[in-house]
C-alpha cells in the first residue's frame, strides 16, 4: 500500500491521457429532534453519553422504532433530487464490526432505498465566465443511523495510534443520516474537481433550503466520500476506484479529486495497478493516505431488519410533501439576482457570505437591495469574521439594518455614524434611536455651527482654500475632512460642501 508520497503527475498532463469517473457519497445528518430509532435528543455538543438509552446503546433486548420525522425528511430530500419514492421499502442490517457501533450492525437500507433514480443539475462557470450546467445522476438516497464517536486519549495526535486508551461517546449513535449516492459521473474531464465541489455545494444549499439539516461541514453534519477512477481516454471501461472518506470542506472536495487524479495517473503511467481501497484526506498537507483495502464484495451480510415493519409511504403523503418543497436554490438565486440587479460579482459575494436570506429579509423590511447588500456584505460580514461567527449570528437583525438605513436616508445619521449605531446594536445598547441619543451621534446640519467650522477649516488650510478659489473643486475634500474631524464625524457632509462652495466660489 502506498502510504509514502508518490511522484504525482501534473493534473493537466493526467487529463490528457485519462478520463476520470467520479462518484460522490454524501452523508447528511438530519436535524430531527430525536434519533432515528428512539426518542433520545440529538443536540450537538452535549456531555458525552448523556443522550442515550437502551435502544441507541444497543443493549440486549432493546428494539428500534422508526422516527417518522426522519422518513419525512428523507422523502423531501428524495423529491428535491427528482427521485422516485419507494412505495414500500425496508431497513436492513449491515453487519460489520466498528468500535463506535453499539450493536455491531448498522441499521441501514440495502436493496430497497426510500428514494432512487434522480438527478441534480449542477452549475459551473466556464473560462468565459458563463454558466454551464452539468447533470449529475443520483442512484439512491437511503436512510441509516450514525455511529458513536471515539476519543483517543494519551497520544500526541488524538489519533488511535499512540493513544493510551480510547473512550466512546454514544450521543451521536442513532442520529438519522441520509446517504445520497451518485451514479458514476463521467464526461467531466478536467472539470471533475470543480464539478465535485459544485455538486456538494449545491447539494448543501438544497439541504439548507429544505431545512432538514444544519448542513455544517465543519461539524460533520454533511460529510462527503469521494470515489475516483481513471480510464484511458476514450475507454468505456471504468478504472479501479479509490474511496476518499469524510472530506469535510468544499475546498477539500475539489482538492481531493485533483490529488487523486494526479496520484492515479502516476501509478498508471508507471505501469502499476491502482488499489481498490479507502483513503484518508489530510486537510493540512492536501494529500490522501491509504486506509484499508476494500474488495468489491464487502461481506456485510445484509438481511432485512426483523424488528422493524416495512416503510410504506402513501402516495397521498408523498404528494403532500412534494408541495412543501422550497424553491430550488439555484432557481431562487437567479431570480433574486435579477430582481435586485446585482452584478455576478456582487451576487457571488452575497452568496459566499450566506447573506442572501438576510438581504431578502432586509429588503422586506423596507431597505433597497443595494443598501441591504452594502450593510451586510461590506460592513457586517467584517464584524462576523472578526468575531468568528456566522453572518446571521453577528447580533444585528434585518429589521434593524433596514431601520438604520432609513435613518441614513433621512440624514439623521450618515454612513460613518451608522457604523457606530451597529456597534451599539451589537453591544445591546437598545434601538438605533436610543443609541443615537445615548452616543450623541446625530448629524449636525445647523448652518450656524457648520459655517463656523468651515471658517475655521479655511483658516487652518489657506493653501487648500486658494486651490478651490482657483477652480480645483476636488480639493474641497480636504476641507470637508477638516470639518468632519473637528465635529467628530457628525457634520452633514453634503451641506458642508455647499457652504464651502458658497464661500470660495
Amino acid at each position, binding site marked *: 500500500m502506498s502510504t509514502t508520497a508518490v511522484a504525482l503527475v501534473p493534473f493537466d498532463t493526467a487529463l490528457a491521457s485519462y478520463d476520470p469517473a467520479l462518484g460522490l457519497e454524501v452523508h447528511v445528518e438530519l436535524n430531527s429532534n430525536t434519533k432515528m430509532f428512539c426518542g433520545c435528543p440529538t443536540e450537538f455538543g452535549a456531555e458525552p453519553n448523556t443522550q442515550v438509552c*437502551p435502544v441507541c446503546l444497543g443493549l440486549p433486548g432493546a428494539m428500534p422504532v422508526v422516527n417518522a420525522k426522519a422518513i419525512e425528511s428523507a422523502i423531501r430530500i428524495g423529491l428535491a433530487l427528482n427521485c422516485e419514492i419507494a412505495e414500500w421499502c425496508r431497513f436492513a442490517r449491515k453487519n460489520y464490526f466498528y*468500535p463506535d457501533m453499539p450493536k455491531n450492525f448498522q441499521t441501514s437500507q440495502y436493496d430497497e432505498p426510500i428514494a432512487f433514480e434522480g438527478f441534480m443539475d449542477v452549475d459551473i462557470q466556464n473560462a468565459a465566465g458563463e454558466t454551464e450546467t452539468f447533470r449529475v445522476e443520483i442512484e439512491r438516497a437511503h436512510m441509516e443511523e450514525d455511529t458513536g464517536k471515539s476519543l483517543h486519549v494519551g497520544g500526541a495526535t488524538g489519533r488511535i495510534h499512540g493513544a493510551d486508551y480510547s473512550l466512546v461517546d454514544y450521543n451521536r449513535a442513532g442520529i438519522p443520516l441520509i446517504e445520497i449516492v451518485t451514479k458514476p459521473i463521467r464526461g467531466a474531464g478536467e472539470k471533475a474537481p470543480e464539478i465535485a465541489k459544485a455538486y456538494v455545494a449545491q447539494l448543501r444549499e438544497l439541504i439548507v433550503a429544505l431545512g432538514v439539516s444544519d448542513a455544517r461541514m465543519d461539524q460533520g453534519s454533511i460529510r462527503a466520500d469521494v470515489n475516483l477512477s481513471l480510464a484511458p481516454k476514450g475507454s468505456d471501461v471504468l478504472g479501479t476506484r479509490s474511496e476518499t472518506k469524510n472530506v469535510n470542506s468544499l475546498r477539500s472536495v475539489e482538492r481531493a479529486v485533483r490529488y487523486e487524479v494526479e496520484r492515479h495517473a502516476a501509478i498508471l503511467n508507471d505501469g502499476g495497478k491502482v488499489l481498490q481501497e479507502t483513503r484518508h484526506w489530510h486537510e493540512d498537507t492536501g494529500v490522501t493516505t491509504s486506509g484499508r483495502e476494500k474488495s468489491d464484495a464487502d461481506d456485510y451480510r445484509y*438481511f432485512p431488519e426483523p424488528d422493524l*415493519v416495512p416503510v410504506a409511504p402513501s402516495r397521498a403523503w408523498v404528494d403532500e410533501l412534494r408541495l412543501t418543497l422550497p424553491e430550488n436554490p439555484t432557481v431562487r438565486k437567479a431570480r433574486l439576482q435579477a430582481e435586485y440587479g446585482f452584478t455576478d460579482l456582487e451576487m457571488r459575494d452575497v452568496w459566499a457570505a450566506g447573506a442572501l436570506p438576510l438581504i431578502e429579509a432586509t429588503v422586506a423590511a423596507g431597505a433597497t437591495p443595494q443598501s441591504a447588500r452594502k450593510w451586510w456584505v461590506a460592513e457586517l460580514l467584517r464584524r462576523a469574521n472578526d468575531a468568528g461567527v456566522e453572518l446571521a449570528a453577528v447580533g444585528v437583525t434585518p429589521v434593524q439594518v433596514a431601520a438604520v438605513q432609513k435613518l441614513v436616508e433621512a440624514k439623521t445619521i450618515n454612513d460613518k455614524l451608522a457604523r457606530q449605531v451597529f456597534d451599539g446594536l451589537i453591544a445591546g445598547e437598545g434601538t438605533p434611536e436610543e443609541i443615537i441619543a445615548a452616543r450623541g451621534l446625530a448629524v449636525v446640519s445647523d448652518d450656524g455651527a457648520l459655517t463656523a467650522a468651515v471658517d475655521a477649516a479655511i483658516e487652518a488650510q489657506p493653501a487648500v482654500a486658494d486651490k478651490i478659489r482657483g477652480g480645483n473643486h476636488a480639493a474641497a475634500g480636504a476641507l470637508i475632512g477638516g470639518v468632519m474631524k473637528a465635529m467628530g464625524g457628525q457634520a452633514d457632509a453634503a451641506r458642508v460642501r455647499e457652504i464651502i462652495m458658497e464661500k470660495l466660489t
Partner: protein
Amino acid sequence: MSDLLKKSAAELVELLAAGEISSVALTQACLDRIAEVDGTIHAFLHINAEGAIAEAAASDARRLRGELLSPLDGVPIAVKDVLTTIGQPTTCGSKILEGWIPPYDATVVRKLREGGLPILGKTNMDEFAMGSSTEHSAYGPTANPWDITRIPGGSGGGSAAAVAAFEAPLALGTDTGGSIRQPGAVTGTVGVKPTYGAISRYGLVAMANSLDQVGPVTRTVLDSALLQDLVGGHDPLDSTSLPEALPSLADAARLGAAGDLSGLKVGVIKELGGEGWQPGVITRFDESLELLKAAGAEVVEVSCPSFVHALAAYYLVMPCEASSNLAKFDAMRYGLRVTPSGDPSAEDVMRASRDAGFGDEVKRRIILGTYALSSGYYDAYYASAQKVRTLIQRDFDAAFAQVDVLVSPTAPTTAWKLGEKLDDPLAMYKGDLATIPANLAGVPGISLPAGLADEDGLPVGFQILAPARADDRLYRVGAALEALLEKQWGAPLLSQAPALEGASK
C-alpha cells in the same frame, strides 16, 4: 407441600379476593417450595425472595384499600431469564451475560409490575434460548419434575419445571421454535405461543427476532388466558406488535370450559404424526381427538405439504438472525471480559471473551448463521428459507380455509433422558418438529396435557393451532378439551406427578 400451591392462579385469585389467604403467605409458600425442591429441579437462576415478598405486601395493602391493579394482582410469577428486569440479573442462561443487571424492564415485566404480580425470580433456560432440553444452560440443566433424570424441554425448561414442580403458579416463557409448547408438553403444563406481535418483545433478548414470541406457561388454560390478557397488547416500543387489541382471552377460555364444541371443524395435520412418532404419544393424541368429536367437533385430516421443509427453513432463518444479534457481545461494555496475558489487542480480548462466554450450541449457530448470510450464499440459504416460510404460510391459509383449528401432538416424544441427545444436535432439533411451523408463519399455538404415555408414564402434549389473531379460538378449544380430559382423570394431570423429595439448596 402446602395445598395452596396446587391451586390454579384463577383459584388463588378467588382465595385472595375472599380474604382467605394473603399474597405474602402465598408468595412465601412459593419461596418455601423453591427452597425445598429447587436444589433438585434447578428451575431458577435467580431468586428474588425479598423483592417478591415486598411486592406481595404492597399487593395486600392495595387489596385492603380496594385498589387492585389487575385481576392477577398478588399472584406470584416466575420469569424466563431472557426477559430484562430492573434490579435482577438477566443472563439468558449464558456466561457472557453473567451478572448483567439491565437498566430497564422488558415491556411484559413492566406490565407484571403494573399488574401487581410479585416476581419470584428468573428461570433457567438454554443459553440464549438455543436448545430443546435446557441442558445448554451455562448454569447447568433443569430436571423434569416427573422424572428428575429427564429433560424438562427447552429452551424454556426452567419456566415449565417451575410451574410443574409447584414452585410458581404462573410463568412467562418465550417461544421461537417451540420453547414454550414443547417444555409444556413434556412437563404436563399449559404453554401458549400467541400470534406473532400479540405480546411485546421489547426487552426480550432476541434469539431470532422474526420468530420469537413471549407467552404464558401455566397449569390451566384459563390461567394462560388471564396472563396473556394482562401482558398482551400493542407496545409503541415494538413496531412489530399488533396495533389492534385481541378480544378477551379469559372470556374465551371460560366459554370453552362448558365443553360444547358443536360446529367446530378440527383439522389433523397429516404431516405431523404417524410413523417415527412415539406410539404412546399418538395413542393419547387420538384419544383426545375422540373427546373432541364427542363434544360435537368434526375432525378431518388436512395436508400441509410444506411442513416437511419447516425444520430446515427454521435452522437457516434462526441462526442468521441469531448470529447478527449476538455480535454485540464483544466484552467491551457489559458482561464477561476475559483478558489474555501478555499485551493483548482488543481483538484478542474479544476472541478470548467470546470463546469463554459462549457455549458450543451458541457457537454452532453463530457459525451457521454467519455462513448462511455471507456473500454468495444468501440466495441459496436465507432467501430460500424465507420462500419456504411463504409456502408454509400458504399451507396454513389453505388449511384454515377448511377448518377452524389445526391439531397435532406437540412433540414427537415424551421427555428424553438428560444427556441422551446432547451429542446429536439434529436429533435434538427434531423435538421441535411440530411446533416450528407456527413460528415460521406467525400463527398462535397452545400445548395442553393430553395424559401420560403408556410406555414411560410421562406427559404427552396436545397442540392446537389457529389463524393469526384468532388466539381466542385456541383458548376456547383448549379449555374445552382440558375440561373433558380432567373429567376423565378426576383431577388435573399434574396431581399425578410424583412427590418431589425435599432437597436443601
